């Protein structure tokens, strides 16, 4: 479904952002992308939604290759992706409902189905009651739920989330995280970049850790003990998820 083969990314001024990145994400998988700030998490996610192209190597997403993708193919691919950011990226002058609807309207979805779909995803994220609120009237956690609703509107096969809890307090973080788990358990893959190690440790999902643009750990490939965390890996309560690939 998603495959990176020996991907490197260099920026003209800041140099190497990613090097020798290879991994695969299977259908329905939940993957954490961790690592310190500046380690390349955001860059990898950008490559996944083809916002940028790798300097070397190839990125495959749902049959679309970074080497050959046309603008039209990229647009079509993104309709099958859900993308969520730390800063929500909502339009402040539109209601929650309008923000979600926007994603359907600008991709030319048939009008007849829009209303029902919007109501469904707002209910799914637990915000049906706040449909007519504007983003500034919502808490951070609620705004992120609107953003997630917008990401879900096209029934994505994967939800890509870049530090989605980075701006949220403890309680809201737990809520959003639970929501992402629910979304994952209904079959949507989730790739979530975070440097919240507590969150990572508390759950048993596959973890890919980056440092200086390289993969230093992938729980799908290495035994748990090889994990370069300062704390022992025993914190984990359950063994790695059985859906994890090779």
């Amino acid at each position, binding site marked *: 479904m998603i495959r990176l083969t020996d991907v490197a990314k260099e920026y003209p001024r800041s140099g190497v952002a990613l090097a020798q990145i290879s991994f695969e994400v299977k259908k329905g998988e939940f993957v954490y992308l961790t690592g310190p700030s500046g380690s390349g998490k955001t860059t990898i996610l950008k490559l996944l*939604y083809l*916002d940028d192209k790798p300097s070397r190597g190839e990125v495959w997403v749902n049959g679309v290759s970074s080497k050959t993708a046309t603008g039209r193919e990229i647009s079509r691919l993104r309709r*099958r992706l859900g*993308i969520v950011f730390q800063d929500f990226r909502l339009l402040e002058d539109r209601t929650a409902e309008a923000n979600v609807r926007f994603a359907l309207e600008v991709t030319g979805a048939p009008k007849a189905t829009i209303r029902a779909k919007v109501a469904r995803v707002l209910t799914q994220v637990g915000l049906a009651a706040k449909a007519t609120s504007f983003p500034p009237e919502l808490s951070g956690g609620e705004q992120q739920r609107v953003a997630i609703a917008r990401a879900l509107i096209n029934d994505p096969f994967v939800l890509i989330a870049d530090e989605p809890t980075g701006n949220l307090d403890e309680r809201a973080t737990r809520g959003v995280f639970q929501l992402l788990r629910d979304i994952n358990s209904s079959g949507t893959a989730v790739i979530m970049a975070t440097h919240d190690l507590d969150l990572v440790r508390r759950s048993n999902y596959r973890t890919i850790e980056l440092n200086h643009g390289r993969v230093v750990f992938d729980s799908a490939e290495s035994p748990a003990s090889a994990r370069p965390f300062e704390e022992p890996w025993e914190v984990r309560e359950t063994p790695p998820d059985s859906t994890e690939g090779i």
Partner: protein
Amino acid sequence: MRSAREALTASRRAPLLSALGVVTIAFSLFAFGLFGLVAINIRKALDQVEERVEVRAFVSDSTDIESVAAAMKDIGEFPEVLRVDYVSKEKALERARKEMGEFADVFEAGVLPASIEVHLRPGMRSPTSVRSVADRMKTYSFIDDVRYGEEWVEKLYRLRNIATVAGIALGVAFAAVAIIIIGATIRMTVLARAKEISIMRLVGATDMFIRLPFLIDGLVKGVLGGLLALVFVWVANRVVNEYFMETIFFDRQLVFLGVVGGAVMGVLGSLVSVGRHLRRI
């Protein structure tokens, strides 16, 4: 339609700059139009004059009619030549009398020489081709002198060329400014809507879908500028007609072409700007 609605909201964000864009497009087309009018009116005058362009070769008195007939046959085969007539001394006198009216008596038979009168084909009446025909006719020994309306044909041609060049130069200069201003207004709206556009990108709106409102914006401004220019040129033409001389106005195709020109400028301005700035968002 969503795109059209969005195009209008875009213009509302920068009303002054938008108006300026429309006015510069109008100025550009006004310059084209004004000099274009001068050019088509000179063109019309030239057409009338050209119909009368003739080359007249005066024949020596002593020439025998056979040589003249042979020369006429030769000249008639020049590719530029439409018709060759012989004007005898008697006919020349008759014409002169008719033209001079009350002074008709002044002329006496034998004063005016016989001549060969040559009319040229349409499209072959430019100063150079007239001169070349005249030069070839001069080579006959019995032809004393060749005359044609040399100076004023050349003057008219020169005037028309100047009007055309001036119109194009001024119009192009204004057009460049118009495209830059339209580009600037569109850039402002692109930047004002940067967040919206980046979200559209993320959720999979196509480039064309994102561009369309801006292109419509440019198109509308261009057409408005074209119509405004049309009003300017029409008023200018009315004024000239009223106070100076009778002129002709553009026909329907040229008017349409002018408005299309405005539309092209508007779309070009937005294309340049949108292409450059969308990529950075």
